[in-house]
């Protein structure tokens, strides 16, 4: 009896110690993740004067101001960058969906000569890093006189082989019987795609859309290459521009305000679609 009680008690103590260690460790990393966000919001509400007067960074401020946000929108064309990114993101994502859905449908549903060969070729394209093709695309877009245009920004960013693959796999899971039933009822392929396949695969399509939106919102390299006119800058380039030429003077609080503004949309999107996004990324997203 006594022996058992001892075993029990030591097991409990060990569990408690382990719990404390685990929670401490997890909380530490949590702070590590959240702190930059805290600092960016904190700095963005410090006034320019008080920030520059600090010799030792202050962990809070007693007189928060929104002046920096005004500066961020008035001194630099932040709203412009914002709208540009929005247009770029929406257009790219929309065109991508229009292009990849029929392709995925063809691979999953239609039988035609050469399908397997083409599909293998598509798959092998997945391994090609974008860095390799950016050079020629840069030349192509320059030759087409599309520098500093939305077409130039959008067109090369549209297609993702990986998403075609993801969608095709999802389409292929829909039982053949549904297709034959629809055929017997005289449904056209296009109608079947729109009325049956897309609704069934909605979760995947939402996932793809969200992943693409994140990718677009954060894209930096291609826009940097293809735009040098501020009127076509996306937020990433805008931030870089602000950092280098900024507000005419080193205005870190205003810079942080800009950072907050461009971070908010995705964070909000994430908080709304938390589950979908995390599932989607776990199923096949990578960063970059």
């Amino acid at each position, binding site marked *: 009896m006594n022996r058992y009680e001892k075993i029990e008690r030591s097991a409990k103590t060990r569990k408690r110690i382990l719990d404390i260690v685990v929670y401490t460790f997890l909380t530490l990393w949590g702070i590590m993740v959240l702190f930059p966000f805290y*600092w960016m919001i904190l700095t963005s509400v410090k006034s320019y004067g008080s920030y520059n007067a600090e010799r*030792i960074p202050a962990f809070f401020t007693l007189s928060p101001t929104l002046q920096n946000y005004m500066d961020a929108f008035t001194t630099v064309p932040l709203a412009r960058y914002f709208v540009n990114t929005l247009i770029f993101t929406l257009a790219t994502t929309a065109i991508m969906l229009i292009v990849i859905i029929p392709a995925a449908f063809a691979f999953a549903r239609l039988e035609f000569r050469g399908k397997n060969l083409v599909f293998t070729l598509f798959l092998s394209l997945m391994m090609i890093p974008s*860095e390799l093709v*950016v050079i020629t695309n840069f030349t192509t877009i320059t030759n087409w006189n599309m520098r500093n245009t939305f077409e130039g920004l959008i067109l090369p960013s549209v297609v993702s082989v990986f998403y075609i693959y993801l969608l095709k796999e999802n389409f292929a899971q829909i039982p053949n019987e549904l297709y034959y039933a629809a055929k017997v009822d005289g449904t056209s392929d296009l109608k079947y795609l729109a009325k049956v396949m897309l609704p069934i695969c909605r979760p995947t399509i939402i996932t793809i859309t969200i992943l693409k939106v994140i990718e677009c919102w954060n894209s930096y390299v291609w826009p*940097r290459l293809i735009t040098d006119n501020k009127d076509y800058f996306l*937020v990433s380039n805008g931030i870089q521009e602000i*950092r280098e030429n900024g507000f005419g003077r080193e205005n870190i609080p205003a810079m942080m305000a800009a950072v907050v503004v*461009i971070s908010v949309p995705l964070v909000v999107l994430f908080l709304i679609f938390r589950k979908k996004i995390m599932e989607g990324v776990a199923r096949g997203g990578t960063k970059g």
Partner: protein
Amino acid sequence: MENNNRKGWLYLLPAMLFLGVFMVYPLVDVLIYSFEEGYNFASQTYTGVGLYNYSYVLHDPYFLQAVQNTFILVIITVPLSTGIALLISVGLSSIKPLRHLYQTVYFLPYVTNTLAVGLVFMILFKKTAYMDGLVNLILNFFGSASIDFIDGPYWAKMFVLCFYTIWVVMPFKILILTSALASVKEDYYSAARVDGTPKWRIFTKITLPMISPMLFYLIITGFIGAFKAYSDAVALFGTNLNAAEMNTIVGYVYDMLYGDSGGFPSYASAAAIILFAIVLTITCINLLVSKKHVHY
């Protein structure tokens, strides 16, 4: 059948057009570029064909610096981030209360703009004439002198770069590993517990082998991702990475292509192909190693 043939290709047409113009053609083209010597961007002419571009790039001190930086970054960040992510994921899956909150918080960096948050890191680490920055404040607290992490010594800059890179790649790794851990059936743990298996042994003998495919997937994608590092460095040190001694191979490619030192697509192509060769080699080695150690 004939009709279906045409229809199939029709559905594929848009995707094939896009891929053809912006992926397949560039792939061939970049190879050609890399062998065309003395290419002139304005007149689009070249003087000869050969390996000169490769030789130039391989002898360019900036490129060598970039290769060195990239390799250091890869060697430090891939094992470290994977290891820490594994620890965090194991911790996460061993707790019940607050787990969702932690998971949500840990995922945040994934949805933030690398460039934007990089600025915050820069401010945290930067030492200016007036203010030493927060990190230095902590260093001072522990009795160390202030260091300028952004414009200071090489190792300090490398430290920040690695730190930020790890911060950025962590969400993905934690997510993948926690879902891998969750997919290990509870029965295996129950079976092991009933047999009185110590925690550590459960971890090494059951958990690790079971998640080894995902772990290797992460290591491989981690290597590939780290070799392509670029925007993290830009976020911290600005676009003139060569001057900051913090350029990466991808950064070198873009600098060659465009910007103040740009206009040399041939050199850029050669550098890009060298990068591709390196990544391919490392990935193959990874795959060979994983074949030996992954149990499925």
